[in-house]
């Protein structure tokens, strides 16, 4: 920590949050909101005089509310930056000003205001950490009702030499030294009902550690651990577990059903011991809940800003679970620590180092090669209508509608979603590597033989195509007549691809993309949705059943959903008769003739 604080290459902005991200790999423009500290962190010597005179008392967050702090405070003695901070919502303001008077260096400045900082960066590492599970939801353990039921993090502060009791373990209600302590495992983990369904990875080992700390403090203390499975899978873990058992810690297989408080403030735990098959009651002076790990609160907001994906548990989704464990699917963004999933310190450090190496690998040349999959305007055909510029999520297209100056694409800013090409009414935009001809040739070949048996699916590269891959990796079986055509974004799926497919005999067409809000191209899939709605309305008008065109959002982690959607599409396909397909082809062919005639007249 201290190393990071004094490193000449590191700038630390605390009390800060990312509020906006623009740009792309190599050249991100990030806006950071830095909230006022009201103390000049460079001048402050952490003498603490201000805090001594401050009359306002609040619970100390760092000690999990087990002690108090003032409105001007230092989060903890080793804090970096080593500076006090004023919580303005708590401070009595100018009416008091006691701290201002005692600060010799005059570092406390009430007039300080929030500032916005613009950061240019070539790469971004997302290390947003975790949020402990809120145990109030699992009230059978009595966290809200009984003072002597504490969380694992509160316990951490109680045994810490730097904590509120200076490491003297006492129970909160009567400050007595407990003679027996119970630990309940998997609070908020591995449950379909409450908390997460996943294993939080660290709680078993954390409890084993805590049990040893207790035994070190007092070898005669009775420690009981209620668990469903002990997972001691890491290097040196089993050894620690054995040490804990040898020191007399009792491990009981079974999670308690209820907790009651006894007259002496102790806890009575009712548990079915699954080893003996009996209901047992254990009286314990104090109870510790081993909290699971949840994604940090800002995860969703940052995910939208950066265009990232989340797994079903709410943690960031890596580009590949084994081969690219710290890369985001978006180039130039990497993950480290619990942001990507629950993990212990060693793993977090490993990932931090890995993310740094990946960032160096990207940046060391000082230049970056851009993907050539961008759009191109055929100037001679462009009518300067401006729709392409309107739909572009990256503002990469400029066009002067009034002066009728044709559209122009800034290829460095173009990310290659292809929405402009799909929305252009005049066929004046070519999407490189995903041209109309290239995609239509895939459609034609697919439908060249036995068209009526096939499920034509357009899938976006980042979510639904990846979701199909995930179904594959999970060996989920689905109807073998599904055929995927990959586009970079569902926004590329031109109306004419759909009409062409139906004319060529497709019984059903599925367009699939990222969930709204998760689009890899900011919000390009909004245009997909609008377009599909429009096409379905037109289908109804023409006498073609609109249900034959489906739109589904499937994320990269939703392999199960992908296979279910395919099964549903197959059911839908079976309801489309040969006659219906022939009728559709006839309707659409007629329309083609009509347009040819019309253009002939013109």
């Amino acid at each position, binding site marked *: 920590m201290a190393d990071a604080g004094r490193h000449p290459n590191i700038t630390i902005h605390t009390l800060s949050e990312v509020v906006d991200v623009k740009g792309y790999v190599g050249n991100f423009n990030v806006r950071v909101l830095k909230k006022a500290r009201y103390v000049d962190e460079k001048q402050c010597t952490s003498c603490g005089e201000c805090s001594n005179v401050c009359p306002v008392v609040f619970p100390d967050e760092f000690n999990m509310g087990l002690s108090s702090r003032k409105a001007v405070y230092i989060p903890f003695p080793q804090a970096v930056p080593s500076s006090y901070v004023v919580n303005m919502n708590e401070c009595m303001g100018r009416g008091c000003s006691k701290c201002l008077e005692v600060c010799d260096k005059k570092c406390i400045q009430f007039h300080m205001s929030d500032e916005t900082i613009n950061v240019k960066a070539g790469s971004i590492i997302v290390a947003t950490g975790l949020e402990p599970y809120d145990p109030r939801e699992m009230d059978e353990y009595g966290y809200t009702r009984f003072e002597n039921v504490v969380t694992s993090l509160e316990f951490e502060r109680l045994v810490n030499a730097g904590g509120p009791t200076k490491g003297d373990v006492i129970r909160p209600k009567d400050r007595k030294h407990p003679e027996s302590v119970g630990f309940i495992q998997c609070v908020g983990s591995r449950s379909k009902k409450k908390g997460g369904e996943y294993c939080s990875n660290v709680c078993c080992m954390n409890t084993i550690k805590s049990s040893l700390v207790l035994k070190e403090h007092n070898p005669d203390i009775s420690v009981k651990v209620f668990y469903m499975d002990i997972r001691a899978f890491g290097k040196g873990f089993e050894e620690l577990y054995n040490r804990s058992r040898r020191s007399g810690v009792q491990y009981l297989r079974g999670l308690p059903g209820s907790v009651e408080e006894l007259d002496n403030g102790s806890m009575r735990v009712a548990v079915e011991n699954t080893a003996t098959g009996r209901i047992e009651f254990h009286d314990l002076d104090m109870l510790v809940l081993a909290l699971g790990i949840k994604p940090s609160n800002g995860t969703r907001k940052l995910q939208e800003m950066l265009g990232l994906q989340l797994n079903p548990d709410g943690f960031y989704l890596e580009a*590949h679970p084994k081969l690219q464990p710290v890369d985001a699917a978006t180039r130039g963004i990497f993950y480290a620590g619990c942001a990507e999933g629950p993990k212990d310190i060693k793993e977090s450090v490993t990932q931090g180092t890995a993310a740094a190496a990946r960032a160096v690998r990207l940046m060391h040349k000082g230049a970056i090669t851009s993907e050539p999959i961008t759009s191109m305007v055929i100037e001679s055909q462009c009518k300067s209508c401006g729709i392409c510029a309107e739909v572009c999520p990256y503002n990469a297209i400029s066009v002067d509608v009034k002066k009728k100056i044709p559209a122009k694409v800034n290829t460095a800013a173009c990310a290659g979603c292809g929405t402009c090409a799909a929305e252009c009414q005049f066929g004046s935009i070519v999407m490189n590597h995903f041209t109309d001809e290239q995609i239509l*040739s895939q459609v034609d070949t697919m439908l060249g033989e036995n068209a009526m048996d096939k499920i034509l699916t357009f899938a976006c590269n980042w979510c639904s195509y990846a979701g199909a891959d995930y179904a594959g990796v999970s060996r989920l079986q689905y109807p073998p007549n599904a055929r995927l055509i990959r586009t970079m974004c569902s926004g590329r799926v031109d109306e004419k691809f759909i009409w062409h497919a139906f004319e060529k005999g497709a019984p059903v067409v599925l367009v699939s993309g990222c969930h709204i809000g998760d689009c890899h191209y900011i919000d390009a899939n909004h245009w997909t949705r609008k377009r599909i709605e429009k096409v379905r309305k037109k289908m109804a008008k023409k006498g073609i059943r609109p249900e034959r065109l489906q739109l589904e959002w499937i994320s990269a982690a939703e392999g199960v959903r992908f296979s279910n959607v395919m099964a549903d599409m197959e059911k839908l396909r079976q309801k489309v008769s040969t006659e219906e397909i022939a009728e559709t082809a006839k309707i659409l062919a007629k329309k083609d003739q009509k347009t040819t005639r019309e253009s002939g007249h013109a």
Partner: protein
Amino acid sequence: MSLNIAPETSCENGARIGVYVCRCGLNIAQTVDCEKVAQSAKGIDGVVMAKDIAYACSEPGQMEIREDIREHDLDRIVVGSCSPRLHEITFRRMMHQAGLNPYLLEMANLREQCSWVHMKEPAAATLKAEDLIKMSISRVRLLYPLYEETIPLTKRTLVIGAGVAGIQAALDLADSGYEVVMVEKSPSIGGTMAQLDKTFPTMDCSI
């Protein structure tokens, strides 16, 4: 491995296509009849060569394709193997090494979206694989070379979150000579780690 060299043909735009059906050991071959799929590609307009191959992504596999490119003057390649999300970069690099434009490559996803998801229906899976290869051939014929642009880059990393993982990443980058900007929402860096007492498995202090 069977060599299924089709009579030398070229299509309208003169494309000379090589088609490779990867068996991926048994990952694809246990469900999909790879030899049959390769056979089905033979004779399609522009396909000069079509064969199945044990591991297309392995160095011997890539070398074989590169040699074919040289020997048969191939200018476009279809690889039917795993997901392009996994190995498109690998095969684009191979194209580049063989002197071809990397964007004249098309992949058919015969593993994640064929053999692994239709394991109990080998005939239907093989039929689907043939379709996917044919679709790729149609597409590869219409691909044209694309060229990457080099753009300048800012040698600076933004680290969001200053817990143990963020600090480690920042220190490694800073020690390697890169500028790092850390953004932390609380008043101090350190994250959850700073609140812990001793840490497992070595029982030492966290800060």
